[in-house]
């Protein structure tokens, strides 16, 4: 008996030992085949699609966001009761039963989309039915909460989530981010297992873009453009606002716009970002840069006079006329040529410059080349190659025979406003890496200096003259602020043939505010207005409304009557006459008409540029002018009071400070 027990015990022991040895062999000895089998059974690769990065404005307001959405697909082969499934789905998805059944009736198909981009609650409801053969894929849906705001600039996505237009296209790679593939262990039911304390369920994110755009300013610009289109029965209107110092884009719009959540419902015409993609003949706004280039080359001064041929000037076999036949100008200073927008005067300035110099000047101001703005589809505009025939030179001097984008024109105005430096406009303020949180900020990118600080100041003073009473841009004035700018009324080029369209114009106004220390450069253009067409009537008031809002929003203090004590004596005298109130509040803003009188620059009475001259040279320069000069200090002129280009005081005395 005992020996039998021993035999059984030994037998069991041997069997157990064999099992343990086999287990140890499988467990501890390396075996590639078994490893591969194990990996196939317990390991899975999960692809985590990156959530597309958000786009926000300069104040953090969301402009484009992504949210999870669930796309429902079916494997018709394994759906058991297709009729019942179709009925349930049709009710939940608000579709017709036939439409759903049509998709799933073919039992040979293994994959068919039922509906894409469903909300989470809808997906949860369908999941709860537990119908075999229905599954979901998690995707990201792009949402533009502001609908039409900044639509053309933001752009939109295709059905597969790729950027097709605007910033979505330009920054597609950064916004899309990188999808993450992770290898995770799973259990018998396919659930991922915790590994090293980590669960790989967090989706990676694309970069967040912070724009320089201010959405409130953007909205105001858009609504004013829409008003202008409706009021003047125009085809469309465009507008751009730049930071005067850096050329950062604060707003850019084209009206009519479209709901960027439904891009398919808008035509390509509405979806295009015309500010950067469309070049057109700008008209008289171009005179600003012709004069600026001549001033830079030392060929003219603000007080240089030109005979304007009583409004009619023969160039080759053509006759150049002023915009209105009643305008029969004779001797005009350069300031007046700009203020009155004389075609003949500008033609004469262009002839004085010559085609080479004028072309180079315009190229230097950024025309005819891409500025390098961080928006896709930028047009370069056109500055024709030399040689130019005389009438072409003449046409180009007043903005025909040349084309430019609204952004190029605004940016060239910004160069005058900021003291003479042409910058690259930009819309991306910063890019935040969602993974690391690192913020990469965009800095202003100067391209070149196009004017000296003094020349830019002279140009600003002349452009203020345009908006004073008598100038063409009087309607662009804003109470309490000095405004500088230039009107433009250009005939519209016939897109299908030669010449211009009869009775079709592009009315525009480009300028800056406040002119004494520019903060905003604004350019607006209205295409084919039918109720009026002069830039002075159509675009200048539009500029005024936008500019008025911009300075108010920025909190820039207007010139107040009560603060005249610190202003110059002339200003004080003029305003004190009709201001008797001693009440502390409210302070009254100086009206545009009063500002006109204060900033009036009579013909030939601008303070000449005496900078860096010796006493002897100053005396030689002012010889023959009705001026008394008070010298302070010794050496070269470092400052002139009042400033260069400003109006000469009533007492005809200017102070020159030498150092």
């Amino acid at each position: 008996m005992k020996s039998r027990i021993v035999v059984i015990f030994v037998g069991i022991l041997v069997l157990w030992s064999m099992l343990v040895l086999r287990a140890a062999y499988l467990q501890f000895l390396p075996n590639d085949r078994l490893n591969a089998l194990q990996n196939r059974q317990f390991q899975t690769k999960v692809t985590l699609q990156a959530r597309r990065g958000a786009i926000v404005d300069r104040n953090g307001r969301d402009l484009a966001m992504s949210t999870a959405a669930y796309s429902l697909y079916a494997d018709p082969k394994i759906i058991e009761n297709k009729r019942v499934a179709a009925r349930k789905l049709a009710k939940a998805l608000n579709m017709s039963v036939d439409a759903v059944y049509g998709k799933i009736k073919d039992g040979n198909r293994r994959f068919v989309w039922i509906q894409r981009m469903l909300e989470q609650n809808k997906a949860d409801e369908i999941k709860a039915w537990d119908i075999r053969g229905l599954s979901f894929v998690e995707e990201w849906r792009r949402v533009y909460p502001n609908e039409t705001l900044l639509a053309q600039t933001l752009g939109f996505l295709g059905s597969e989530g790729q950027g097709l237009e605007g910033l979505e296209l330009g920054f597609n790679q950064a916004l899309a981010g990188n999808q993450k593939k992770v290898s995770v262990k799973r259990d018998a039911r396919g659930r991922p297992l915790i590994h090293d304390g980590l669960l790989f369920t967090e989706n990676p994110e694309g970069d967040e873009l912070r724009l320089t755009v201010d959405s409130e300013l953007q909205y105001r610009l858009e609504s004013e453009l829409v008003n202008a289109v409706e009021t003047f029965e125009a085809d469309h209107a465009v507008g751009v606002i730049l930071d005067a110092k850096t050329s950062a884009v604060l707003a850019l719009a084209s009206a009519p716009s479209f709901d960027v959540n439904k891009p398919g419902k808008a035509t390509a015409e509405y979806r295009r970002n015309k500010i950067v993609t469309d070049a057109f003949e700008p008209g008289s706004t171009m005179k600003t840069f012709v004069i600026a280039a001549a001033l830079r080359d030392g060929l003219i001064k603000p007080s240089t006079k030109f005979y304007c041929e009583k409004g009619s000037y023969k160039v080759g076999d053509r006759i150049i006329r002023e915009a209105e036949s009643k305008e029969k100008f004779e001797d005009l200073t350069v300031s007046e040529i700009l203020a009155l927008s004389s075609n003949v005067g500008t033609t004469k300035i262009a002839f004085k410059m010559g085609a080479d110099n004028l072309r180079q000047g315009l190229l230097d101001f950024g025309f005819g080349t891409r500025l390098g703005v961080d928006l896709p589809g930028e047009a370069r505009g056109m500055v024709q190659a030399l040689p130019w025939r005389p009438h072409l030179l003449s046409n180009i001097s007043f903005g025909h025979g040349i084309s430019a984008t609204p952004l190029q024109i605004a940016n060239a105005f910004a160069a005058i406003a900021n003291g003479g430096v042409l910058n690259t406009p930009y819309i991306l303020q910063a890019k935040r890496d969602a993974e690391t949180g690192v913020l990469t900020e965009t800095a202003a990118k100067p391209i070149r200096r196009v004017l000296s600080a003094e020349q830019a100041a002279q140009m600003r003073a002349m452009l203020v003259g345009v908006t004073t009473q008598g100038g063409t841009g009087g309607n662009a004035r804003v109470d309490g602020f000095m405004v500088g700018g230039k009107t433009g009324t250009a005939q519209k080029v016939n897109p299908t043939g030669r010449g211009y369209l009869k009775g079709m114009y592009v009315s525009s106004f480009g300028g800056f505010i406040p002119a004494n220390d520019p903060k905003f450069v604004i350019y607006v253009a209205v295409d084919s207005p039918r109720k009026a067409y002069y830039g002075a009537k159509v675009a200048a008031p539009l500029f005024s409304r936008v500019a008025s809002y911009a300075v108010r929003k920025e909190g820039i203090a207007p010139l107040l009557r009560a603060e005249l004590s610190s202003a110059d004596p002339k200003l004080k005298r003029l305003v004190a006459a009709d201001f008797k109130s001693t009440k502390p509040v409210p302070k009254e803003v100086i009206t545009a008409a009063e500002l006109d009188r204060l900033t009036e620059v009579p013909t030939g009475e601008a303070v000449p540029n005496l900078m860096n001259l010796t006493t002897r040279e100053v005396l030689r320069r002012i010889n023959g002018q009705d001026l008394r000069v008070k010298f302070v200090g010794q050496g070269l002129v470092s400052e002139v009071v009042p400033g260069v280009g400003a109006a000469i005081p009533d007492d005809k005395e200017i102070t020159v400070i030498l150092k």
Partner: protein
Amino acid sequence: MSSESFRQLKPFFSILIIIATLFSIVFLQMEERRMGYSVLKLTREHKKVWEEKRVKEIALAKVTRPQLLDSVAQQKFTLKKVQANQIIHLSGAMSESVEKVVNKGLVKKDL
């Protein structure tokens, strides 16, 4: 219990300790797995809540869009767009002058 009988039971205690240790290891591994599932569940809930938050953020962005605020202000509250001349400007210079007048009056009274 005598030391002799304790010595005889020692192998059993050793085996008991080994078995208890093995059971503990298995228990801990099961606990780790169970907690893993809890974490997975919570992670999914967290993700769901996070997505709900995003949806609410989108809804907030939609209801605070300038177009809507403008139309509500104008149509529901019959407000009009602000005009530049409706803004009251208070200047520092005038505040000082007013202060001087007030101070002057006080000094006279004190005297």
